[in-house]
């Protein structure tokens, strides 16, 4: 009796719930865009999606960096409680989920709209493919290979504003004298990022490709690679002890305020300068490729759409996918995020001086590198991260030891 009434109530509520969903779906979108610049960019997407009418963007921001959010996202999908759509990094983050058939196939939509014709560089779309089918939508291009400097900090310390890494290292003693932190950095993945950048920009494209694509242990043990480790050893002397546990946007804000002189961080840092109202070229400046080898990798964010039992949700997913690659969204979103658009045919005249530099570099496909995420599984990336952070924190660890272990990791990588 009592049970029955409870059951009826439950049944009615379920019915009502499904009924209200017919025609318009609430699409829960998870992402980890939570810093100032990132949140502004996520808002652009949410607003343009709601404007399309019908379906609604339900924001599921997860605080913390990708390493916090990724396991939450993956375990929700594996656990049978999928969200409508989710941001992940372009690359191998979702490889296993796609293999297990847990992602919505977007091939039909992609062929209809001709994604392959306008997505540049083409490698970006390849990262979304598995057995010829497309499972994700790249939304932007982010490159790690940027250094952000505060010219005023150098002027204050009476040092020349550097145009490349070596000049930066040379200016460091003067900065330290003035109590300015030469290199602002933070927790593990940021330190690992510094190493990635050095590999690409100080080691050069050939070395980078040999290690990424061929997993060559010979290249990993070469004298060129040793020079990269040596530069990384220099970097550990330029950081302040307070770097432990610092968030990347806190590090950026040290540069913003002139407490630190520079930061090696991907171009998403630019969103922070933008939110603070700083002007590229005067308040801050950028050295793409550390001013040595101007090559950029093309990682970035992509949206995945976990398979869902409700056909309304699937329809809403396809609608979002189509919106994400559209010209208007690409321009508005990337201006807010400080990243580069995935299409070559949009007008980015309004982009600032630093973004223009990036667009120019990427225009030549010789300057485009595959990203770490495309080359290494998260397991291998993790091993390298453990090594680089251990090396960075422990000044008694020698370059030779570190390189020997690096060779080992590259040898095991698949």
């Amino acid at each position: 009796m009592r049970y029955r009434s409870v059951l009826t109530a439950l049944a009615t509520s379920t019915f009502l719930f499904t009924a209200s969903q017919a025609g318009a779906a609430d699409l829960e979108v998870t992402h980890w865009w939570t810093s100032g610049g990132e949140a502004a960019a996520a808002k652009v997407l949410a607003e343009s999606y709601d404007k399309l009418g019908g379906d609604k963007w339900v924001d599921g921001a997860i605080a913390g960096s990708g390493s916090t959010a990724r396991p939450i996202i993956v375990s929700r999908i594996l656990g049978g409680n999928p969200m409508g759509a989710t941001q992940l990094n372009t690359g191998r983050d979702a490889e296993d989920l796609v293999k297990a058939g847990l992602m919505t196939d977007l091939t039909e939509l992609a062929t209809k709209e001709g994604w392959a014709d306008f997505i540049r560089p083409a490698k970006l779309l390849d990262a979304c493919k598995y057995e010829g089918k497309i499972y994700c939508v790249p939304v932007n291009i982010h490159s790690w290979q940027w250094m952000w400097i505060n010219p005023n900090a150098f002027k204050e310390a009476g040092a020349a504003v550097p145009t490349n890494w070596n000049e930066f290292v040379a200016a460091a003693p003067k900065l330290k004298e003035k109590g300015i932190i030469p290199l602002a950095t933070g927790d593990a993945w940021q330190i690992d990022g510094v190493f990635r950048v050095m590999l690409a920009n100080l080691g050069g494209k050939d070395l980078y490709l040999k290690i990424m694509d061929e997993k060559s242990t010979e290249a990993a043990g070469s004298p060129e690679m040793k020079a990269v480790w040596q530069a990384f050893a220099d970097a550990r002397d330029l950081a302040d002890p307070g770097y432990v546990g610092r968030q990347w946007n806190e590090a950026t804000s040290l540069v913003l305020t002139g407490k630190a002189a520079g930061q090696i961080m991907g171009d998403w840092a630019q969103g922070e300068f933008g939110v603070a109202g700083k002007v590229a070229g005067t308040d801050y400046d950028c050295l793409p490729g550390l001013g040595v080898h101007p090559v950029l990798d093309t990682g970035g964010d992509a949206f995945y759409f976990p398979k869902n039992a409700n056909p309304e949700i699937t329809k809403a997913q396809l609608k979002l996918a189509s919106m994400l690659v559209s010209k208007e969204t690409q321009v508005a979103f990337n201006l807010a995020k400080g990243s580069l658009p995935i299409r070559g045919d949009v007008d980015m005249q309004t982009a600032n001086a630093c973004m223009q530099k990036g667009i120019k570099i990427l225009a030549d496909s010789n300057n485009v590198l595959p990203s770490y995420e495309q080359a290494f599984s998260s397991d291998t990336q993790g091993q390298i991260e453990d090594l680089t952070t251990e090396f960075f924190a422990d000044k008694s660890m020698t370059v030779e030891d570190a390189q020997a272990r690096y060779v080992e990791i590259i040898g095991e990588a698949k």
Partner: protein
Amino acid sequence: MAGSRRPFAPLRNLNAKIAAVPMIVTVLVVFVGCTLWTVVYSFTSSRSLPTLDFVGMDQYVRLFRTSRWTVSLKNLAIFGVLSLSFSLVLGFILAALMDQKIRFENTFRTIFLYPHALSFIVTGLVWQWILTPAYGVQKVVRDLGFETFTFPILTDGRFTIYAIVIAGLWQGTGLVMALMLAGLRNIDDEIWKAARVDGIPAWKTYLFIIIPMMRPVFITTLVIISATIVKVYDLVVALTNGGPGISSEVPAKYVYDLMFSRGNLGQGLAASTIMLTTVLIILVPWALLEFRPRYRKGEVSK
């Protein structure tokens, strides 16, 4: 166990047996079943999803070649020995002081027990703020005029594990004290009187009479603390996140990272199998010695 009052032994206390069934099933399926699953899959090359592709001891070989894992084990040993001994000693001393029929006992007890009401995450964050050079102890002492004072416990990899020990003790000692205090209250006043009549000094009474009598309390406490030590994870994540570098990593964190953020189930399961084996090697002989013979005599019956 000899049941002769009723004809059919398995039906005796049927209600109690039925009530125990869910727990028994849970233990068999969840604990035993999942443990076996873990061990089996630790010999495979599983990445994010489990596969039955056996690779022999490969995962274990890699595990012990990984410096992060060996550092984790070393840290767990340091953390374990220090927090076990200090929380027992401090907890007992606090309880003994508290047992002197002092005024405001309730207030003091609450103060000491209070940290235990906080989660390890909160504990970790609080101590991070206290110990971080930019705002914490170091800054306070420098502001007092000692300009060159440095207290790099969180920024120098050699000391970070001790920061975790300190935070853990702050959180856990109160509970040990409460348990010990309960044990002390159980000691008959007559024993104290007898000891006093015989002219035995208080410290000797504690050491040679009271503590041996409190054996069951000590064992309970030991089990509770050991469990917290082996599974320590959230405290580290909140306080240092394993850093700087890998200097304050612990095994549980390695398992979690490998399984969930790095998509290498096989490696994570191998690490957790090692954790289980270590615990069993220490625990099984001790538990056999401790519980079996005494249980029959009815000494440790509570």
